[in-house]
């Protein structure tokens, strides 16, 4: 609320320290992982990690947008799975169907985001409840359609999208980088981006200066849903099979990544780059769990600890968000 006029610039030494702290934590974690297992830094392992991280990264971009406008999107994981089921519904065997699948998935995602956004802005429903309800409705529809076990098949090209490479760079990572670049430009070089920060910083002030905060908010939910839909498609390509829980846990992980990356849940503060760094920190930590040979459930304990610790670290005043 205090820095709405210069949302992205460094305003104080503490801010500066925070900005350096985040990449520093990432570097330290990478150092630890490498010390534990030197092959961590090998080209193929890094490629693996980034291929896995790209779909999460897409979801994180969207989650950050809605958190910036004082929201939250709990429906992202459910939407990812729903989009995955939709992709198999075409039962396509030819790669020519891939664009059709993408368009259908994007239309569905945009509609879900629009519905959440309308509930939140027009009916003043809390973002938490609106997206929660959306999550449950999508889950029910998906299970009702698949009767519990998805059956259809995906075009063979999907696997390439999830695991293939483009001049040695994973394709899904290229897609993520493109989205990150475009959204980064939007946030920091366009009027729309500044409006998003203003709406998140102080919606009433935004209305007073003539910004349609409702529309900006709805747009953020639509973008979040579309990014989650894209994440779902690429994740299906990576995993290769569709079940009802593609993307399970991504709603929590994307929120954790944003919070760890310094995006304030109270809105208006934080950057996409920070959130993406947060996502990388998360991914490297999960990898360390695997390197250490700990049971996969230990990740849950670590997740919980990180999110509380990170949120406490960034809490600015006694009542915070």
């Amino acid at each position: 609320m205090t820095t709405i006029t210069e949302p992205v610039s460094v305003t104080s030494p503490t801010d500066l320290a925070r900005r350096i702290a985040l990449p520093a934590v990432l570097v330290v974690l990478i150092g630890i992982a490498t010390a534990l297992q030197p092959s961590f830094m090998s080209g193929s392992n890094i490629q693996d990690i980034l291929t896995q991280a790209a779909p999460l990264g897409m979801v994180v971009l969207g989650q950050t947008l809605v958190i910036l406008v004082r929201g939250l999107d709990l429906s992202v994981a459910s939407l990812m799975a729903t989009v995955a089921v939709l992709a198999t519904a075409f039962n396509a065997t030819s790669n020519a169907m891939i664009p059709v699948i993408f368009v259908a998935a994007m239309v569905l995602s945009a509609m879900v985001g629009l519905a959440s956004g309308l509930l939140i802005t027009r009916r003043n429903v809390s973002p938490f409840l609106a997206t929660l309800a959306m999550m449950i409705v999508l889950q029910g529809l998906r299970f009702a359609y698949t009767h519990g076990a998805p059956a259809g098949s995906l075009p063979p090209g999907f696997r390439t999208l999830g695991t293939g490479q483009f001049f040695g760079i994973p394709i899904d990572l290229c897609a993520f980088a493109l989205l990150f670049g475009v959204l980064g430009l939007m946030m920091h070089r366009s009027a729309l981006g500044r409006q998003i920060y203003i709406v998140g910083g102080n919606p009433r002030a935004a209305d007073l200066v003539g910004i349609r905060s409702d529309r900006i908010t709805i747009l953020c939910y639509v973008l979040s849903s579309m990014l989650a839909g894209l994440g779902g498609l690429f994740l299906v390509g990576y995993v290769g099979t569709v079940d009802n829980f593609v993307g399970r846990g991504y709603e929590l992980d994307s929120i954790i990544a944003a919070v760890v990356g310094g995006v304030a849940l109270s809105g208006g503060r934080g950057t996409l780059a920070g959130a993406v760094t947060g996502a990388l920190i998360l991914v490297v930590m999960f990898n360390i769990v695997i390197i250490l040979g700990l049971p996969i459930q230990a990740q849950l304990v670590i997740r919980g600890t990180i999110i509380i610790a990170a949120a406490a670290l960034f809490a600015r005043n006694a009542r915070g968000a």
Partner: protein
Amino acid sequence: MASAAIPRRRVRIDLAIATVVGLLIVVLGFGATVSDRFATTANLLTVAEQAAALGFVAIGQTLAVLVGGIDLSVGAMVTAANVFVASFVHGSDVLMIPGLVAVLVLGAAIGLVNGIVTVRTGVHPLIVTLGTASILNGLVLLYTLQPTGKVPAWFEDFAYDTAFGLPIAGLVFLIAAAIVALVLARTGFGRAVYAVGGNYEAARLAGLPAERVTLMVYAASGFFAALAGAYYVSRTGTGDPRVGDPMTLASITPVVVGGTQLGGGKGGILGTVLGVLLISLVNNLLNYMNVSTFIQWVVQGLIIITAVSLFVNRGKRL
């Protein structure tokens, strides 16, 4: 603002409760025409018995929401309590009562930790309790991936027993709800819960122990979730590391449907009790109509959307 808000608030609460009561009547009437077995005493008593677990958790959730927060750790707490009791007791008669006491104390203690972290760090309870949920789930799954442990047979009977012709579990739920409702309506603590939920800073400046009230509310929520976990042991006779998974979200629906508003300060236990009955009846009716669980989820989502869209909250949002 305060003088204008009071009469309006009364009208709102009555509106929410009247709506739920109306819906209950509609569901009962509709159910009676659809199935012969729905509106029978036997079935309604079964519903009351099955509603107990959701009811316990929803009482705690109502308190957390009233004070302006939310408790997303209740599902994990139900699971942890469930596995703890079954593993600790392990079929022993002697350990049964100590196990129950221990789990309720532990539940309250973990809830208290939620409260302390929330109050001391200023982190939003949504995040704190999600974190706690993740930690609890992780610990339980590190301990066991399969249902484990057992309890004495007499404790298993308890879940299905009746007293005065009514299921014991349903009675315990109603008594607990009545006690909490009385505390909220008649004690200084209850008034403080509404005051803190209405405006934390104002309540603190007015000399109310806002921090202590918040801590006690989260402790109560942990206590009730642990109670639900213990009740599940009685129902199933074992500790299931997945039993509480759906409870977190399920506990929020009756609270919201009953007219308690996210953001705090408005609502109450009566609405939640009616909300629990409504949700349980609807699910029961859908079962009779052979509607799949999957469609029941859709219905639940639509109920949330309808409820929160009807009772528009023009004040704070969570």
